[in-house]
């Protein structure tokens, strides 16, 4: 055959690409003949060839229309077929909905917390600039350092330092402690958001001695000042001082930066350090630094530049810096930091549940397919094309997936609400969890993926079996070897995946129990704490502060139901801490400078109120509170004693806190260790100093009660107000609540993991049960023959159970192997238990085997009840 050459031929060949594949060759032959005719007639072939495009387009359109019509027919047929098998449909849809629902709800949280962009313009340019702490986490920095960074670096558009502030608002109504942020004028450039009313701070307002100004949050402005449009320029009273309101932030401004290290700020005021004594201190690390990268500077470049600057600073001030350097962390990852691992872990776990669900649905579809093999083979023998039959099978899967997916989204919506309710409150972004378009898109994708996963198996299985073979095999209703092996494999997969999840739960549960068993060093039960901050102009001198606290303590101690009262600068596990550099008499200064133990200011019966045991010497008491009269004293904890006084008595030893010029303090007593940060962390060296010798206006009242702790809360608050009506009393909680808050994340992960593992186990057992029940039904005849030939009922029972249990054991073995490979991703969630803990692995294997035995014995029992003569007569 001659090929039409030239331009016209090329046009036809291009147009041919539009024509459905099935008719393409023929179409080209037709057009080649056509062009030949035009050439023969001596006319332009190009003009004619242009006509090939409308022709091809029409055929293309027609092809798609036919496909869609065919799909519609198949879907209608599938719907009719499925409705006739309600049990099958119910099982498939319920399984899918369960798997998808769980996946969608976890993803909606992952999306809101981890994937949501920061709510700031070009928020990906905002970074945390930090000196890493001992654990390598971003730590606090000093003002002097921030000033040098700002002067020397060229990578940032703006660099701001912030610190938390508790402002007491006394205008109009009850005194209220308002979480606030003290920062520089640059703060608003870093976040990229300006006040909607008024203005931000000016740089000159950050100077010590400048007029005090404040920017309010939209919510505070609305709640406390009734949304007064004239608020800008009005003075308000904060902690007894006048502050001029200069601006109000927009309603949608999220105080993420303050939330990250402190609390959600409701107002912002300048640091006012510039020009003050504190300005140049390099070791006063109490600020957090944030910066906005220049648009053309990548994070890596900024990191390199800052590293060099930090080395220069360390060279100039070797006593102020160690070799930890500086770290830049994108704000987004820092915000989601603590929960990131847990959430990915949960998403991984829930994907396993979805995988089991898909395996089960595949198994169900497969079982049904083998039941229909005769019918299918018959139809194939009667001339139905393989593609046609396959199309129908796929339409069924599509329909099942669509119904299951829709129900899954509904379930996911509920699940999401439950998740948010269960989640620890300090997970950022939880209020943005919703079934929004990205989550729905994910749901559709997950559904489609599931449909492929469970739809592909029967299709694979169906191909490669000739109709003759199937008809022959089908004659006796014997399960085809290939289909059976596939279903066996799916059950093995079910069990293996369930094992992996159960091992995860076992390890997490053991960790949780062990964390709860950790002795925190104090007894939280029956103790209530509240913040009482003596702040304001009348408390600028030490005398009134001490007098105030002494009076409050005296009054509350005499309340009925109170066993002991004390005050402490930071309660254990309350989230805040204080460290101080010390020198111990007779100890060489270590090369890294002074060691920095935790330092707490206490007053009254703190140790008795918290039941922190006194190990040696005496507790601090009234005689240490005589002000200038009493000698300087300090108490230490057990770890401190063992670190600095190994094998000797520390009582009478001396140490200095803070600076070279500080007075020597005598150690008068040793108390037990307190886990101040987390139950999981070993205690650090700790120091306790009396309030009279280190006056602090930030104290927590700690009250041990005889009865219900809640009962004394109101009375205690009234006593504080009886001493000074202008002092707010926020942060009221029982110490049990404070400790529980610390284990909330662990509890959250554990409860979700256990839910998923339970669902996985139930699904896996349903899978085993379904498979065996099906096999028993298929082998009725064979069992009948066996019984007729004299097999005992116990033999039949064993036969069936052995089949199920051998699959289970293969699954258990594979699952344990998988768990060994996967649990290392769990290790950061574990406490005091190895990822390969043999007890957990064996326990999970045993539990699964036991449950599987029950699942196997049900169909096996049914098999033993088969009546041989009846079975055979039916045949």
């Amino acid at each position, binding site marked *: 055959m001659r090929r039409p050459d030239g331009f016209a031929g090329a046009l036809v060949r291009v147009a041919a690409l539009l024509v459905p594949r099935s008719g393409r060759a023929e179409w080209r032959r037709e057009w080649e003949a*056509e062009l030949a005719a*035009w050439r023969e007639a001596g006319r332009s072939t190009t003009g004619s060839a242009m006509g090939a*495009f409308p022709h091809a387009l029409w055929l293309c359109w027609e092809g798609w229309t036919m496909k869609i019509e065919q799909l519609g027919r198949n879907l209608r047929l599938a719907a009719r077929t499925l409705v006739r098998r309600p049990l099958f449909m119910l099982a498939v849809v319920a399984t899918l909905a369960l798997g998808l629902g769980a996946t969608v709800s976890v993803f909606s949280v992952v999306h809101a917390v981890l994937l949501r962009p920061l709510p700031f313009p070009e928020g990906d340019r905002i970074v945390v600039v930090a000196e890493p702490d001992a654990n390598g986490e971003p730590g606090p920095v000093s003002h002097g350092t921030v000033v040098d960074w700002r002067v020397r670096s060229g990578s940032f558009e703006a660099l701001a330092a912030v610190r938390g502030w508790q402002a007491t608002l006394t205008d109009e109504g009850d005194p209220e402690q308002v979480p606030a942020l003290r920062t520089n004028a640059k703060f608003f450039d870093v976040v990229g958001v300006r006040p909607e009313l008024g203005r931000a701070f000016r740089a000159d307002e950050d100077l010590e001695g400048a007029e005090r100004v404040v920017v309010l949050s939209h919510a505070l402005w609305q709640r406390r000042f009734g949304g007064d449009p004239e608020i800008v320029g009005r003075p308000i009273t904060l902690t007894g001082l006048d502050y001029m309101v200069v601006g109000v932030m927009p309603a949608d401004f999220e105080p993420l930066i303050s939330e990250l290290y402190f609390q959600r700020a409701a107002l912002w005021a300048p640091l006012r350090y510039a020009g003050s004594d504190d300005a140049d201190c390099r070791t006063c690390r109490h600020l957090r630094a944030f910066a906005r990268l220049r648009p053309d500077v990548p994070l890596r470049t900024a990191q390199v530049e800052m590293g060099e600057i930090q080395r220069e600073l360390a060279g100039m001030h070797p006593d102020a810096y160690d070799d930890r350097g500086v770290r830049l962390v994108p704000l987004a990852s820092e915000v989601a930091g603590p929960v990131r691992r847990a959430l990915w872990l949960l998403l991984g776990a829930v994907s396993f549940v979805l995988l089991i669900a898909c395996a089960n649905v595949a198994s169900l579809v497969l079982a049904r397919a083998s039941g229909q093999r005769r019918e299918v083979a018959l139809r194939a023998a009667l001339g139905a094309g393989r593609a046609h039959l396959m199309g129908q099978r796929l339409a069924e899967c599509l329909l099942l997936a669509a119904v299951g997916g829709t129900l899954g989204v509904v379930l996911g919506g509920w699940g999401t609400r439950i998740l948010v309710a269960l989640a620890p409150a300090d997970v950022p972004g939880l209020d943005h969890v919703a079934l929004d378009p990205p989550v729905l898109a994910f749901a559709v994708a997950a559904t489609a993926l599931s449909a492929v996963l469970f739809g592909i198996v029967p299709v694979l299985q169906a191909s490669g079996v000739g109709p003759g073979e199937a008809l022959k095999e089908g004659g006796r209703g014997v399960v085809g070897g290939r289909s059976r092996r596939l279903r066996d494999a799916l059950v093995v997969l079910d069990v293996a995946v369930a094992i992996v999840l159960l091992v995860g739960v076992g390890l997490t549960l053991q960790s949780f129990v062990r964390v709860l068993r950790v002795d925190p060093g104090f007894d939280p039960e029956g103790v209530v704490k509240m913040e009482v901050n003596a702040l304001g102009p009348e408390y600028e001198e030490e005398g009134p502060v001490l007098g105030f606290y002494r009076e409050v303590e005296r009054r509350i101690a005499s309340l009925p139901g109170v066993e002991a009262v004390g005050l402490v600068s930071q309660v254990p596990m309350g989230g805040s801490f204080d460290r101080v550099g010390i020198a111990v008499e007779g100890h060489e200064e270590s090369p890294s400078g002074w060691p920095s133990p935790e330092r707490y200011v206490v007053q009254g019966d703190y140790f008795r109120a918290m039941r922190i045991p006194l190990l040696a010497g005496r507790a601090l008491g009234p005689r240490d509170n005589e002000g200038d009269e009493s000698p300087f004293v300090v108490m230490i904890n057990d770890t401190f004693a063992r670190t600095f006084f190994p094998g000797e008595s520390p009582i009478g030893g001396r140490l200095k806190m803070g600076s070279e010029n500080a007075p020597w303090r005598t150690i008068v007593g040793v108390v037990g260790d307190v886990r101040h940060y987390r139950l999981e962390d070993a205690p650090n060296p700790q120091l306790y100093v009396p309030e009279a010798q280190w006056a602090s206006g930030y104290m927590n009242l700690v009250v041990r009660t005889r009865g219900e702790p809640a009962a004394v809360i109101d009375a205690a608050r009234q006593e504080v107000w009886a001493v000074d009506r202008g002092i707010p009393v926020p942060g009221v909680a029982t110490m049990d609540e404070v400790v529980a808050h610390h284990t909330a994340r662990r509890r959250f992960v554990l409860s979700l993991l256990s839910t998923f593992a339970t669902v996985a186990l139930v699904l896996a057992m349903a899978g085993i049960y379904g498979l065996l029940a099906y096999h028993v039904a298929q082998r009725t005849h064979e069992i009948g023959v066996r019984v007729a030939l004299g097999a005992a009922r116990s033999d039949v029972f064993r036969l069936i159970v052995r089949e199920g249990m051998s699959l289970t054991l293969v699954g258990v073995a594979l699952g344990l192997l998988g768990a060994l490979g996967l649990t290392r991703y769990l290790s950061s969630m574990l406490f005091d238990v190895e990822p390969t803990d043999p007890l957990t692995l064996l326990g999970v294997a045993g539990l699964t085997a036991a449950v599987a035995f029950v699942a196997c014995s049900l169909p096996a029992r049914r098999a033993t009840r088969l009546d041989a003569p009846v079975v055979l007569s039916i045949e």
Partner: protein
Amino acid sequence: MSPRNRLPSPATVAVLKALAEGISYGFDIMDVTELPSGTVYPILARLERRKLVQASWEDPAAHRDTGRPARKYYRLTDAGRSALDEAAERYRALGALRPERA
């Protein structure tokens, strides 16, 4: 809308008419109807889908000597013939309409 109720386009009628006259090759149909290939071929495809025409490849023996590629010929089916008659009737009726005002 079923094809029976829709008045076929003049081009379709022209193609049907050409086929009824016994002209069975695309090139020849274009020649007599003076329609371009981009009109005639989609019409033929549509008519074929509606089973109004039937296509067949010419016998290889018929063109072996000429050396040209095999051609696809179209002929009207019975349904096609009645569709043409009906369309012709309706066009005539259309022509008989006497509007009140021109």
